[in-house]
């Protein structure tokens, strides 16, 4: 519209051009195809590692460009990263605890003849 792309003192945030968003969308769709293709090959436990790595790249693209993360300050980046750190602590905590707990074994009932 009237102001176009220029930055006047009136504008409160960073204006990102639509063309950049389109490039990000194409990258996200290509990465989706890569995820589906990679899952067709049996790589054992590396399948899930690869799938989560690609998902994290996609999530980073969404946060960095679509959600304007690139233009945000340190406080907002703290808010972005803290839940992921907490998730890592939670999963780490569960896996270093639960598999090592002793569980009562089911009672074997044998019939005497």
């Amino acid at each position, binding site marked *: 519209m009237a102001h176009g792309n220029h930055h006047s*003192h009136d504008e409160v945030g960073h204006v990102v051009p639509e063309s950049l968003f389109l490039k990000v969308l194409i990258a996200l769709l290509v990465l989706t195809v890569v995820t589906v293709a990679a899952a067709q090959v049996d790589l054992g436990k590396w399948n899930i590692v690869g799938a989560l790595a690609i998902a994290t790249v996609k999530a980073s693209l969404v946060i960095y460009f679509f959600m304007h993360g690139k233009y945000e300050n340190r406080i907002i980046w703290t808010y972005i990263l803290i839940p992921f750190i907490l998730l890592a602590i939670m999963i780490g905590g569960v896996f270093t605890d639960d598999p090592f707990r002793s569980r009562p074994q089911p009672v074997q009932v044998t019939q005497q003849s």
Partner: protein
Amino acid sequence: MGKDKDVMSSNAAVAEHHHVAPGDPPHIHHMDSKTAYGAAKLGMWLFLATEVLLFAVMFCSFAIMRYYHLSEFHDASHHLNLKLGALNTAVLLFSSYTAAVAVTKAQRGDNKGVIRNFGISFACGLIFLVVKTIEYTGKAEHGMFPFVWNEHFYEYKNFLGLYYCMTGLHALHVIIGMAVMYIYGIRPAMHNRYSGRYYTPVELGALYWHLVDLIWIYLFPLLYLVG
């Protein structure tokens, strides 16, 4: 009389200082518009952090249940319709793109652009829900739906329980996101409310929609691909 005049002139001075224009929302008078924008956005990101933690509990459950029931998860994930899941992924990614574009349009004062792009995101949300319903119906036909059509549900109860919890909660977020885009994006834009000086609700609504997309980016490979 003189006092009134003073108040009026001081209001005018405040208005001058904060660059308040006719048609600006009333709260813009209370705060410098940049401060209000920054505070609103910080609050939204804090809320989004709690949303991520809500799903984090489910991702953690998924991780530990998959660890204990690996073969069940592997078999059960093959019962999901990969084509429909991939279609929904593409639909959500595209809707996220149009939501991001809507923010740029709002910043340029293009209210019609906000309506158009949020409208596309809204329609994509509807498509997502229709596809999800088709998937749930398919599961029900194969007896893998909890409580009612559950002849085969208990063979895969650990996977399917998490599948319905995670996708169900995600679908609820899709519905809320669509409502947010309509109430805070499309409807005010119909009254030409947004400009480069005030577009906070459009950006916050778009942030919520991106979160919905972000969660699905992780749900799709975990549920449909690697089980």
